[in-house]
């Protein structure tokens, strides 16, 4: 019998288990019980059936999907004895729900988790290009979905470049290849303005990849908007919920992506017709405006003319009135003249009378008439002498008489 130390034994058993007994790991089916997570890092649960229990261990970064007690699962991992605790458990790499019920439950759990995380938020949904020129197609080239999509696309629209990546949509490779296809297109954005992930309908198990968290996150993380069209109308998948646009079928994905050629032709026709109608209408309106303007100008002109005629008549009337006035004024002037003359004559006679009386009066003041009566004017050196005190005896004076004058000498004076 072989002897071992404890460590040797544990190491030997673990080595034998991984290298010899289960070189590809082990898959065990059972029901989860006593599921717990410690420190947010370590996952512990028991896998049981009617008679037995096996302990399972994993880490949260490895098993990301939500699990709960009662879930029927297939656990894939490596059995191992933990050296420190001596506990025998399965080191779990992957957990797959088993059976329709469990799958459904697992689906519901994951859906709730992703929803809570905001992967389905309507606010982050992007709109698709209206007339895409380049489409990235992620599908299996052998599938009916692939040919349906291309057929409907061709029926509706032409001249598009479709860059297709063949992926597994079912089976072990499906998740990885779909995720890889998303990565590829996101690394080569020049290949597609929009991505389409599509496959035909199937059971929940068939659609497993489209319900996988990795695929949901790949759709969520894509920088290029994504249309997901899976299965027939009654099916739903998590990829659907995350997609920017959810199509009910592969054909529907094509319908949502491109408009119908015929509709567009009709629309273009109606655009052209509308353009012509509106333009013709605008011209008619403009013509109407012009005619109205012409009418307005005409009426304004005729108004001006008639008002000019009025003015002319007014002017003529004014002239007539003026003529009458002139005639009247002339008459008045004549009468004025007449009056002026008559009055002038009277006034002149009066004036002549008054003048001769004044003349008479004035002539009485004339020094000549005084001299005629015998008075004389005495001047000394040309100045009239009227005061005897201003002259001395012996001085000469000039004496003016009515007829002639003489020079005299003062011999005596008295005052």
């Amino acid at each position, binding site marked *: 019998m072989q002897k071992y130390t404890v460590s040797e034994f544990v190491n030997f058993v673990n080595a034998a288990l991984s290298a010899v007994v289960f070189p590809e790991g082990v898959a065990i089916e059972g029901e989860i019980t006593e599921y717990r997570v410690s420190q947010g890092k370590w996952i512990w649960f028991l896998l049981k059936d009617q008679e037995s229990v096996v302990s399972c261990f994993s880490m949260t970064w490895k098993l990301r999907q939500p699990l709960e007690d009662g879930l029927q699962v297939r656990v894939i991992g490596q059995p191992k004895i933990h050296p420190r605790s001596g506990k025998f458990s399965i080191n779990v790499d992957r957990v797959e729900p088993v059976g329709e019920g469990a799958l459904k439950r697992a689906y519901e759990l994951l859906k709730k988790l992703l929803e809570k995380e905001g992967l389905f938020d309507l606010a982050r949904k992007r709109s698709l290009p*209206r007339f895409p020129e380049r489409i990235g197609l992620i599908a299996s080239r052998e599938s009916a979905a692939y040919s349906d999509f291309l057929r409907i696309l*061709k029926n509706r629209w032409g001249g598009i470049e479709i860059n297709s990546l063949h992926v597994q949509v079912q089976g072990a490779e499906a998740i990885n290849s779909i995720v890889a296809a998303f990565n590829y297109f996101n690394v080569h954005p020049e290949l597609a303005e929009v991505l389409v992930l599509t496959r035909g309908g199937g059971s929940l198990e068939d659609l497993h990849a489209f319900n996988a968290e990795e695929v949901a996150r790949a759709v969520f993380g894509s920088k290029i908007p994504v249309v997901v069209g899976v299965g027939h109308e009654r099916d739903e998948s998590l990829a659907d919920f995350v997609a920017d646009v959810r199509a009910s079928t592969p054909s529907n994905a094509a319908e949502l992506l491109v408009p119908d050629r015929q509709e567009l032709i009709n629309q*273009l026709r109606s655009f052209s017709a*509308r353009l012509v109608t*509106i333009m013709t209408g605008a011209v008619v309106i403009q013509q109407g405006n012009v005619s109205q303007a012409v009418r307005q100008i005409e009426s304004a002109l005729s108004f001006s003319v008639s008002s000019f005629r009025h003015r002319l008549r007014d002017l003529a009337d004014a002239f007539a009135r003026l003529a009458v006035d002139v005639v009247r004024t002339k008459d008045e002037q004549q009468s004025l003249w007449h009056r002026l003359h008559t009055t002038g004559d009277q006034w002149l006679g009066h004036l002549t009378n008054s003048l001769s009386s004044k003349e008479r009066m004035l002539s009485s003041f004339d020094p000549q008439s005084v001299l005629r009566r015998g008075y004389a004017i005495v001047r000394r050196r040309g100045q009239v002498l009227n005061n005897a005190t201003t002259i001395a005896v012996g001085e000469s004076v000039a004496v003016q008489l009515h007829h002639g004058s003489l020079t005299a000498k003062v011999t005596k004076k008295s005052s």
Partner: protein
Amino acid sequence: MTSKKTPTKPVDFGTSFQELEKIISWFEGDEIDLDQGLKKFERGLELAQVCRTRLKEVENRVNELKVKFGELDN
């Protein structure tokens, strides 16, 4: 070259269609300036023609990308 269309530059249907829609909505506005309208009218008809021509393309080009999983996985 006699035609205005250059064969090297494919018609961008989306851009043309959008421009046409803008013209239509301009025409549906209240006041139409006849001079401007005439220019837009001509442009609109030209765009409609361009779009119709583009719609005559019936074939789509499908490129089956040959990418192996190793490359895909990165």
